[in-house]
């Protein structure tokens, strides 16, 4: 997925409107940490792909969020 598509996708999923500087700042850091990788450019647009390490890190983060969310929802239900 390339930068423009990523911005649109994030907006659709979460409603957060990212600026291009914010997105590329994050992409550069993720790339530096080996969590995403750039593919060859297609017509000046460069697609990015999540790496194995990135998938593992994302999974761990999502599971942590899921635990917090489920505990929160359970406690809300108990009151």
């Amino acid at each position: 997925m390339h930068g423009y598509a990523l911005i649109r996708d994030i907006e659709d999923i979460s409603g957060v409107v990212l600026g291009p500087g914010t997105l590329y700042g994050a992409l550069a850091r993720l790339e530096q940490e080996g969590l995403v990788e750039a593919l060859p450019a297609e017509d000046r647009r460069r697609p990015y792909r999540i790496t194995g390490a990135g998938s593992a890190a994302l999974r761990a983060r999502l599971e942590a969020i899921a635990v917090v969310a489920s505990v929160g929802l359970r406690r809300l239900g108990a009151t």
Partner: protein
Amino acid sequence: MKGVAKLPFLLLNLYPRWWRERYGDEMDVMVQGLVEGGRSPLSLSINLFASSVGVWLRGTGAPATREFWTTRTQRSLLVSALTWFAFLPLSVAFGLSNTQHGFFKGGTRVQMSGASTDALHVQRILFSALILSCFVALVGWQILRGALEGQSVRLRWFHMTNRFAMGGILLLSAALFLGQHNSTSSVAETSGVVGGGLLVISWLSLPALIVFMMREGRLAADRLRAEVTVSFALAGLNVLTTFCVASYLFAISRQPVPLPGADYLLFRSSLGGWNAALVVGFVLVAALSVTGAFTARQSYVRARTL
């Protein structure tokens, strides 16, 4: 595309070269898509400006080479060092514009208001911070000179500036001595003017000289570490000085009007409304100094890991 719509594209040039080479093209296409999709060019511009500042400060996406991060450490140290040269003229302007006013009938001890006492205490801290900052700057200068002495950096201009400064100090000291001992006033005056002139020349040429020396020379890791420590000390003293200047001006603004006929001692500033500009100047220079010190430290730490 006209006016404001062009702004985000122009702001892409604010990013460092390493960033533009890697992400410039794809960001350009993306910004084009966002503008055509109806995103406000102004909000895009604000985002790009803030992000470019962040990239400069953090070095995001920069090459992971020791060479790059060492050069970056030196440049950050340079920024931090040069702020000191801006700090002293500001301090001189502050010192010259602030005076004491008093009325004494004699015999009894003069009573100062709480605000005046605070101003006096802050003034003492300020003076100590300035003296200490001169000392720290001298230490930094000696480290730099020592580090570059053995390299192929041409130190001819440095030695000349050093002689100018020493000559200036000697002539000014002579002028003060002659003035106090009632010798020929014209000799004292000439000595003072020439001495002051030499000091100003060395003061003005020193920043350029430091830039030149830092660009030509290469500091070893231990010297870089020492200079990072010096830049942190200078940044801390600059922040302390700025805080003292602001506190002093606040304290003197709260001094009560003396009662007619009573003994009093007041601190006054002749700058009036311009004091706000002076404080803004101090704050900006201190912020630049702190930024330089932090960037230097971050770059030095990164260079060591490569």
